[in-house]
């Protein structure tokens, strides 16, 4: 994910984003009807557009998760069928109306959560740290969260290189069966984790010698988090809208 640079900082305070993420997550859990979840999905898309995040480009990237979503749909139908049976094999319902609706809700919940995460992921570690601190999170914890987010891109690049290396060894991972593909990804997870831990150790040394944890620390990373009228307005509108939808008004 391309993060914004100092010159391209978004017009909204990161605290606003954190509040919206918390509200959005609560609504995602509270809303049980698929239609309400669908409305929430569009509302989150609107929030992303307002925040100058390329929402549709992000959605397009989610296509890679399609196989996981399909698996979710199948599992939901197999293990939790309800309502009218649409397809049955040997008397056992494989696809049911209720199963489909539940699966649809499940997928929407995942997508909504991911989209909410994107709001934070595009921010710089300093803004995230500062916002978390302003929200009362201790500096050390806030710094850990932001460095972990920064680390994600390193982790992603390594994972991509490993998949490329696998393909270059004559293993066409894309044309393998789902089971074999999962096994291959599982195989990658171990060296990836070890490598990440080693990098984390180097990063830890670097941060330590830069005075991390100093009690003298007074100033924030940068004076860029400042809630304005539009921040408050956005939070208020989203809160009222969410409660109204939840209560079925």
């Amino acid at each position, binding site marked *: 994910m391309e993060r914004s640079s100092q010159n391209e900082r978004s017009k909204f305070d990161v605290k606003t984003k954190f509040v919206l993420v918390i509200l959005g997550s609560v609504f995602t859990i509270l809303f049980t009807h698929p239609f309400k979840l669908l409305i929430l999905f569009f509302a989150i898309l609107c929030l992303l557009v307002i925040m100058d995040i390329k929402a549709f480009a992000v959605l397009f990237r989610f296509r890679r998760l399609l196989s996981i979503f399909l698996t979710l749909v199948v599992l939901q139908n197999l293990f939790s069928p309800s309502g009218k049976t649409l397809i049955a094999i040997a008397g056992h319902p494989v696809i049911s109306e209720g199963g489909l609706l539940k699966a649809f809700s499940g997928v929407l919940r995942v997508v909504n959560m991911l989209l909410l995460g994107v709001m934070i992921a595009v921010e710089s570690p300093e803004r995230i740290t500062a916002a978390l601190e302003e929200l009362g999170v201790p500096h050390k914890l806030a710094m850990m969260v932001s460095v972990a987010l*920064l680390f994600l891109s390193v982790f992603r690049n390594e994972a991509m290189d490993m998949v490329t*290396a696998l393909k270059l*060894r004559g293993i066409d991972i894309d044309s393998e069966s789902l089971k074999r593909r999962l096994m291959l990804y599982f195989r990658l997870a171990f060296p990836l984790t070890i490598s990440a831990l080693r990098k984390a150790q180097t990063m*830890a040394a670097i941060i*330590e010698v*830069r*005075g991390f944890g100093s009690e003298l620390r007074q*100033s924030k990373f940068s004076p860029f988090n400042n809630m304005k009228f539009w921040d408050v307005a956005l939070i208020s509108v989203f809160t009222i809208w969410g409660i109204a939808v939840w209560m079925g008004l």
Partner: protein
Amino acid sequence: MSLLKIEGLTFTYAHSDHPVLKRLNFQLEPGECAFVFGLNGSGKSTFALAAAGVLLKVAKGELDGRIELNGESVFDLAPHKLVQNVGLVVQDPDLQAISMTVADEVAYPLKNLGFSDARAKSRVSEVLELVGLSGYADLRPDRLSHGQKQLLALGVAVAARPKLLVLDEPTAYLDPEAEQNFWNVVQVLKNQGTGVVIMESWPHVPEFADSVYSLVDGKLIDGIEFRMPNPMAKQGIRLSDLRPVFDVEALRFSWGDRILLKNANFTVPQGITMLLGANGSGKTTLTKLLMGILRPQEGVVRFDGKPVWELGLSVIGRRVGYLFQNPERQLICRSVLDEVMLSLRAAEGGAVSEDRAMELLEYFGIQELADRFPLSLSASEKKRAALASLLALDPEFFVLDEPESGLDPLQLANFANMLERLAEMEKGIFLTTKNFRAPSDSQTNASAWLQCRLSANLLELRDGKVIAK
């Protein structure tokens, strides 16, 4: 009083029975520069972390002895005291930036010291001017070249005016020009009274070093006794004598507004070809274009007459073995033997013989490492394990991206032997390497040594074009 005084330092990692540093003694005065040479695995990084006072914070193990900075135990220093006393720069330029802009990066230690915005801004300007990055304050650190990233790391390390600067192989990834720029700044700092400890795995001692040591068997000894084996020059093979394998035509590639290749035309023949280029000139990008990992914006790369990106990665991968600059990214199994078995299965399908895998490991001299976890190997062993797994696919050609990176002189000599053995098997080899000043630098420069040793056909990547040297 000495700036840094180390007495009887012994350190044993939690997972090991053998101490990596053994009753090590060391002393450094203010404004003095000590150069410490050590082969990979000799304990340089452990020594660097110990001198910087963070060893026990980032590694588990047993430590004996004393490390004093201006008479105070380095382990007792509070974070704000540590940052005012020690600056640390490590080998990997990509792992040192934690901020979104160059200015924020330099400001980080200052903010931790409670500097006001105005004071921090003024000091950031001074530091950026010192390291020659004044025009880059608002740029994202990952947009900088390797050389600039290391200068930034140096700037951050000295932002709080520490009295001691610890440099752990800071120039390992830099070309000669970037290396010289880096040393120039270090010399300025030394002249201003900063004590400097430099760890390097190549015996390339900067002129301003006051004392030179070698780290051998966990102990420091005076001077450098190590001598790089002289590369045996062999008769080069003329480019025109060999059949072209890769044919590159009107290649154009850019990352955003940064153009790396513009209308590049060249062929890569069978035999050994070496591509030289400065940091950030696009060498890695070019190897990825040759392999079809990246697709050019314009132009075409043909392998054996066919466009590579039409072949697909799994097809080209069987015909051309690609060694990443960091082979850790292609070692994905639990053991070295598994690595080779995985490739053999991909090449031959079905059940494969373990004997064949062991044969390949033996070929690269790593049969005794068959059960080891690949990421626990040394840099050279990792490269050999990666090459063995590539050779299992029986490719006709190898593309190696800066294979000398991370290797000390002995490891490089071993690695060069292996490349020659591949060439003897009539495998073609295309390898990229950093620029060097002159082949006569081969005693202190890995790229120069490799060129003398392999006597390869030379190409150079400069200003987006590939030219024969």
